[in-house]
């Protein structure tokens, strides 16, 4: 579903991504694991071209993202994104926020005048149901808790009826309990609906707990790829260079390293 080949991104002369290849099939929950500044965000943002890649070929469901701008909107329509700070529109209701996920599929003029097709409203409500927030549909988005807001973010992405979802550190600002609810919701929906998920995380714990497969990134390069069970000490050392030296001093970016 998500195919990336030879993706590179330079900021000026500083390389952020170097020749990244990856492939995520339908229904897989693939975690990109790596320290802050490894290029995880850049990788995700290049895939839907919120950031312009410097080189490489990116395809979603076989369609080239790196082609013409014109086609980009059509590809984005079926490519959901979940942000670290959820990026909901404050002051809008939860339902309307989820409906924004369907805007690209609606008649423009009617929706600008706040007339939405019943079918789209039904889809939005269903997606809210998937994250257990159907009862909050008419609350203002900025009145919800952080965890609830992120689940609305998931519902918005699901409302796009996407083939793939990009999740950029979706639980970075949540407490451990809420983070597990959010990641659980995302993984369940992805499995049931056959969506390919590429999810950035920096916590090893969550990666081993939720991922079908882990891709380790360090300094803009893929340094590990495999099932959670194969993520051993040496793999971690490649992803988090210098981690072993700090072990016993409880390294902040790797809580409870899985052996």
């Amino acid at each position, binding site marked *: 579903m998500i195919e990336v080949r030879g993706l590179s991104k330079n900021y000026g002369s500083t390389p952020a991504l170097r020749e990244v290849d990856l492939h995520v099939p339908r229904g897989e929950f693939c975690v990109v694991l790596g320290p802050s500044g490894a290029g995880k965000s850049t990788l995700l943002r290049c895939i*839907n071209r*919120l950031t312009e890649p410097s080189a490489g070929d990116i395809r979603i469901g076989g369609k080239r993202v790196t082609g013409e701008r014109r086609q*980009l*909107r*059509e*590809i*984005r*329509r*079926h*490519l*959901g*994104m979940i*942000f670290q*700070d959820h*990026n*909901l*529109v*404050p*002051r*809008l209701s939860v339902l*309307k926020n989820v409906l*924004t*996920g369907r*805007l*690209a599929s609606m008649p*423009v003029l009617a*929706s*600008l005048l706040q007339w939405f097709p019943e079918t789209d409203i039904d889809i939005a409500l269903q997606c809210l149901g998937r994250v257990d927030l159907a009862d909050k549909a008419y609350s203002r988005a900025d009145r919800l808790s952080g965890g609830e807001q992120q689940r609305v*973010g998931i519902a*918005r992405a699901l409302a*796009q009826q996407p083939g793939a979802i990009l999740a950029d550190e979706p639980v970075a600002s949540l407490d451990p309990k809420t983070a597990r609810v959010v990641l659980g919701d995302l993984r369940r929906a992805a499995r049931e609906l056959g969506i390919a998920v590429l999810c950035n995380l920096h916590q090893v714990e969550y990666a081993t707990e939720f991922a079908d497969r882990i891709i380790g990134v360090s300094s803009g390069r893929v340094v590990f790829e495999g099932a959670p069970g194969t993520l051993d000490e040496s793999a971690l050392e490649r992803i988090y260079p210098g981690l072993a030296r700090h072990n016993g001093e409880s390294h902040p970016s790797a809580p409870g390293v899985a052996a």
Partner: protein
Amino acid sequence: MSSGYRFVLGRPRGIGTIAGCVLIAGIVAALLTWSAQALGLSLGELLKGLPWIGDLLSRMLPPNWSFARRLWQPVLETVQIAVWGTLFGVLLALPLAWLGARNLSPNRVVFHLTRQVFNLARGINEIIFALVFVAAVGLGPFAGILALSVHGAGMLGKFFAEQMEEADRGPIEALRATGANAAHTLVFGVLPQVLPGWIASTLYRLEVNLRTSTILGMVGAGGIGFELVSSLKLFQYQDTAVCVLVILALVMAADYFSSKLRARILD
């Protein structure tokens, strides 16, 4: 451990820097003194003139309350000028604001051009605009409304544009990522964020317009200002007093209600 006080500047400075500061202070003082002389600032003149102020004030008393009956119509007109002036100002400002917002403007040239239009409209006083429009459409409130509209569009356009520039980029980016088009992004991503600020700015502009529309009449552009000036010219100072008091009440009421409303909206 020592006690006492120490004078602490930002960071330790050499004697050269201090000398520089003293020099600048000296230059500023010299400039102020020079301009005060040129402008005829003089406490003595003011003190000498005080009895004349007292004389004028005494001639205003007691206010001629019966004159108030004749002011209903002009007061109503003043408020109407302010309301229509604000409405036209908003309508003019809305499309311009979008062109003048750095993050939404179609290109740099349009952005800078629009900002200059705002500066021009704001830079020229309403009274000057009123004189121009009186010449164009004749004496009366319509000229006043046009004057307030143009000046207000400059101010509101700038405020609206700056509020759009300050809108959180996150939600806008999220909308773009769903494949939504520019119009959708504006209506669902930007508008909900800026609308409270826009309403607050508009209310503030209404306050300003009400204050200004009380003097537009001085140049024949409608409203209570005309009564004020005529009573002064006819030496009917007791009538003038009533005009001033009515204007005061009007402006205070507008400020009160507008600030109450703004506080509620911005919550």
